[in-house]
């Protein structure tokens, strides 16, 4: 084992250790992906869309789909209804394809921003991994394709497919064709159309009928995610009675030269099946004065197509200069359940407009929304949520709770709940609170020997507890640390 694997292995659960050994053996066998670097020129045109598709050796149907999306996108207007502000984006000034490892390469960690290194240290990220994250040249880099391959071995027996979307397009075109765009059509919104035209890569998961995925599936690799981050496309399908828990993202702050990120995630759940989707988002938020940082405009939506199906979204959003996303559930099957648990933290000049949409179509459908917004510095944090109960959704129920916590006098918190009910038998509850992190609470903890910084962390983590409880254990611990770092020095 080289140092990289040794360090990462320490953090891994037993499942992950098995995986790690696989990676190790892959490398022994010289399994290395082609890392020939090549970027598309700036700008977006049919040629560029064709170029991307060709680079990925896609079949004609895929190229056509991308082109249709592109043509539709050209006719669309960029939306401006959210409560976020940013200078106009020049879509012709963006490069829409860059092959892996096109990030600037540094020779050693000494050349990396010391602030970033401090953060890595606090998160306990191993040295080798730090190098990879900050773009320092390392001996071995494993990428998403090889990782997916090793997972496949373990999961194959169960008939589970977990691979990159690019690979799925090649290997499982029938499934991709059937479901891609079926939850978020390319006509859905401006960024979904853009993503459909130019998506770089992402994950594909298929859990066949009656199978419970034995491990948490994770993009896990804080490492490889950087290459697919810009226009990521994820598709997860759980057939009848299947179950999967999927973890996305990473707690390490990732810098990226691409300012605009527009991902699309689609989930499809059939009868009695369940998908649990957890996200920790920590893209570069910009500096203390609000310069730089990622614009994260994401479309995430799940369809509970079958009866008794369930989708649970849990997200911890601390990164990005602007976050604009609404993981949603279409509750089509009778008795289906949608859940949304969210913690969104904004500091300095970050802006977040996030929430969910719960669309009740089937009978006795239920949804729960728990949103915790924390604003510090000069930031602005909005919850925006829609609960719609259709005519036939007899007995539908929703409970929504939105709590906001303010850490300074200059930050803002807003709640925009939209409720549309077309059915008398529906029960929709909405609760909202706003509080300021209390001087009296901090003093109380101080008086028991706890420092102000630890006191704030304790109060904030307590505030977010209902959401953290929904995260897988390891993720929850990391999320708590992350929150502490994001809010460092914001009080007192």
């Amino acid at each position: 084992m080289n140092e990289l694997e040794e360090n990462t292995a320490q953090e891994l659960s037993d499942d992950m250790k098995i995986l790690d050994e696989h990676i190790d053996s892959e490398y022994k066998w010289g399994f290395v992906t082609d890392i020939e670097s090549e970027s598309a020129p700036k700008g977006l045109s049919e040629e560029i869309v064709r170029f991307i598709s060709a680079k990925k050796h896609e079949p004609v149907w895929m190229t056509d789909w991308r082109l249709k999306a592109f043509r539709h996108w050209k006719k669309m207007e960029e939306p401006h209804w959210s409560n976020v502000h940013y200078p106009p984006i020049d879509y012709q000034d963006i490069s829409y394809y860059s092959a892996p490892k096109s990030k600037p390469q540094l020779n050693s960690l000494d050349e990396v921003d010391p602030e970033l290194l401090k953060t890595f240290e606090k998160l306990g990220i191993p040295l080798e991994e730090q190098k990879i994250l900050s773009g320092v040249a390392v001996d071995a880099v494993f990428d998403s394709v090889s990782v997916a391959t090793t997972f496949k071995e373990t999961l194959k027996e169960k008939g589970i497919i977990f691979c990159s979307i690019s690979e799925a397009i090649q290997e499982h075109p029938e499934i991709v064709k059937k479901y891609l765009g079926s939850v978020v059509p390319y006509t859905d919104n401006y960024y979904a159309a853009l993503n459909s035209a130019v998506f770089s890569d992402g994950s594909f998961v298929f859990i066949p009928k009656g199978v419970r995925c034995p491990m948490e599936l994770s993009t896990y690799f804080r490492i490889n995610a950087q290459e697919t981050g810009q226009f990521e496309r994820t598709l997860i399908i759980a057939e009848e009675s299947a179950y999967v828990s999927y973890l996305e993202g990473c707690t390490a702050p990732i810098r990226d030269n691409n300012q605009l990120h527009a991902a699309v995630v689609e989930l499809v759940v059939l009868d009695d099946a369940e998908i649990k989707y957890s996200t920790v988002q920590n893209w570069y938020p910009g500096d203390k004065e609000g310069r730089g940082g990622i614009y994260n405009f994401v479309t995430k939506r799940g369809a509970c197509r079958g009866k008794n199906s369930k989708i649970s979204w849990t997200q911890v959003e601390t990164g990005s200069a602007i976050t604009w996303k609404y993981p949603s559930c279409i509750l089509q099957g009778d008795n289906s359940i949608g859940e949304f648990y969210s913690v969104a933290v904004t500091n300095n000049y970050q802006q977040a407009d996030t929430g969910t949409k719960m669309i009740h179509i089937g009978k006795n459908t239920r949804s729960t929304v728990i949103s915790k917004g924390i604003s510090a510095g000069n930031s602005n944090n909005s919850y925006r949520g829609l609960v719609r109960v259709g005519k036939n959704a007899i007995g539908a129920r929703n409970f929504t709770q939105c709590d906001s916590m303010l850490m300074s006098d200059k930050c803002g918190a807003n709640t925009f709940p939209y409720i549309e009910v077309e059915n008398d038998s529906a029960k929709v509850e909405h609760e909202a609170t706003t509080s300021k992190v209390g001087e009296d609470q901090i003093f109380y903890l101080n008086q028991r020997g706890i420092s102000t910084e630890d006191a704030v962390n304790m109060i904030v983590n307590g505030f977010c507890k209902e959401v953290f409880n929904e995260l897988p254990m390891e993720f929850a611990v990391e999320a708590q640390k992350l929150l502490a770092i994001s809010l460092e020095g914001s009080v007192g």
Partner: protein
Amino acid sequence: MLTIKNLHANVEGKEILKGIDLEINTGEVHAIMGPNGSGKSTLANVLAGNGGYEVTAGEIRFEGKNLLELDPEDRAREGMFLAFQYPVEIPGVSNATFLKTAINEVRKYHGKPELTPKEFLDLMRDKSKILGMDENLISRSVNVGFSGGEKKRNEIFQLLMMNPKLALLDETDSGLDIDALKIVSNGVNIFKNKNNAVLVVTHYQRLLNYIVPDFVHVLYKGKIIKTGTKELALELEDKGYDWIKPDLIEAETA
């Protein structure tokens, strides 16, 4: 243990304490009594380092250290404990997490190893029994959903858990019925020994039947106007405060 000299303090620019002198030695129980607005709670809060109170003059030494130079958390780590008049709620933070952090912070400060989970749980069980508290309290959020009396009881529970050198009890008796008062007082009496000290701030003599003071000080308009023994408390219960108020005495004699 604690020496206060000529202490002056303001709240929102208004002078509340106007020259307090007080000496507390180990093994002693002191009671501060006085009418509403005399500055009793201010004194307790100033000692604990509450940022809402500004010390304008005077000196406080605690265990040989200049207390006014210490942050509130360091005062706590040095062994100063305030049982709050109005304990705050901290949603989502369990009593176990909170107390474990608190105790270990103090231990760390004194170069002692952290308590193991077992040691901590044993301690928690022991002390909660003394106060007749439910064991499920361990997993409940700090003070959330507690009645006024339960909150006060929880303060004394924390006192026993943290075992400080000096306990400041700020109106711990308010809002307690007689049974709760007995339980809470019993907790304080179990805490008290020859190596620590207690300062009780109270309105009523009632509490002092159970926590018997060595000294009783009467605070009036920001100054200690009379010091006596437990008999003074009884006298105050009987006669009220007017007979010792200096301005009233002056008015009468004038």
